[in-house]
């Protein structure tokens, strides 16, 4: 399984919202694609620690977060 990591702040900027820029849309699609693919693990880093696992839902087009315990 390939681990894809992204910082919390960068992740927040990437999330889709009403002011989504084209660059962010591309980034979101990329990470969302990883998050629904069982070959990848998308992990959000906070203070360089792995904090959340991002799990995408292809039906809703949204993501859920799972806290990574120490």
């Amino acid at each position, binding site marked *: 399984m390939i681990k894809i990591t992204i910082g*919390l702040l960068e*992740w*927040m900027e990437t*999330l*889709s*919202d*009403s002011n989504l820029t084209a660059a962010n849309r591309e980034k979101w699609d990329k990470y969302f694609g990883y998050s629904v693919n069982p070959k990848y693990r998308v992990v959000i880093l*906070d203070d360089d620690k792995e*904090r*959340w696992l991002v799990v995408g839902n292809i039906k809703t087009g*949204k*993501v*859920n*977060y799972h*806290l990574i315990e120490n």
Partner: protein
Amino acid sequence: MKEILSVVKNIESDFKSENEKLNSYLELGSSYFAGNELHKALSLFEKAIEDDPKNSGGWIGKAITHLAMTEVAEINTINIQDYIERSIKHTDESIIKKYLEAITLHYGYQFASAIKLYIDQTNQALAEKKEAQVAAVVGLATAVAGGAIANKSKSFTGTFIGYSMLAGGAGVTLKKGYDSFTLDQLSKSLYGNALAQAIISVPTMQSCYQIYQNSHGDLKENVEVILDSWKDSVIFLFTNEKIIFLKLVDELRDTDKFLDTEKRVAVQNKIDEILYFMDMIGLDESADFEQVKQLKIVIISFAEDFTKAKIEAIVNRRKKTQTGCGIVATAVMMVIYFMDNAKIFENKSPIPGLILIVGAILIYRYYSKKRKKINDASGMSDVHSNINQITSEFQKISIEKHAIDLKSLGI
């Protein structure tokens, strides 16, 4: 009890929006909250508010995180009313209710803990006999109460459970004072801090009791712990108040002290403090409350019946008797001294000693009779007998936990 606030974990699902960024802020904020990383949780809830101020999730998350970050001793200084108002504005009552309940219960728990903390601090200072420390602990009382009142002074009308304590709670409790009772007075009281905290926590306890009545299972048990802890503290404080009060009243049995206006005013102030406290904790319908009120009436009617001139006349008569007896006692001692010098008595004779003892007894008996006569004639004896009767009744008062009726808390 921190789990009371764990309701935060539902924020993302309760306040879900079409805005995925906002949903993530709420979910990650809740996640930080669960991990006790409260500063980070706060920053994410604030970002959620920035992103969409009309979504209640960010506001309620911010309110609860602030509350969770507040230490027990600082519970009166926190102001989350604005955040709650904003969260209520944009959401349905049924959704927000459980968050308001959680906030109320957390407040209740913190208040109960704060009262205990102040009692412990005072006990410790007393045990260590550090007078300056006792004074410092006691002196904080007005600040404790003042902080709470400043926070709750805004007029505010809410209909939700748990809202009453934010609806100017302490202000409500202070509407109807007892003549001389002021919060400043508490700063002079031993355990004043704890007393102030107990008084201002009453509206919150009323709300907690409402929640208790409507809850089941674990929640009911948790609320019961909060209410029981509060009752324990209140009983401890009442017992202390009673001891201090009885000491003060005991001094009034001495006519000289009773005639001293300052002493009487001190007792009257203490009575007001006790009456206020009893009223707040729901004992205003009890027979004990009536006893204390009776004592207050005795002291007040004394001030009405006994004019300044009359008191001065009694004081003068008592002084005259005292001086007269003093002169006679001195004269007796001088006579014995001269007789002894003139060698009238044999060496080592017991007679001078006996004369001295008999003389002292006779003078004391005369002095007591005369003093009683003055007291009877002036009406002071009746006042004393009233005080004795009432205080002996008051001494018997002891509050049991079940006697504290949470339904009739507050004035």
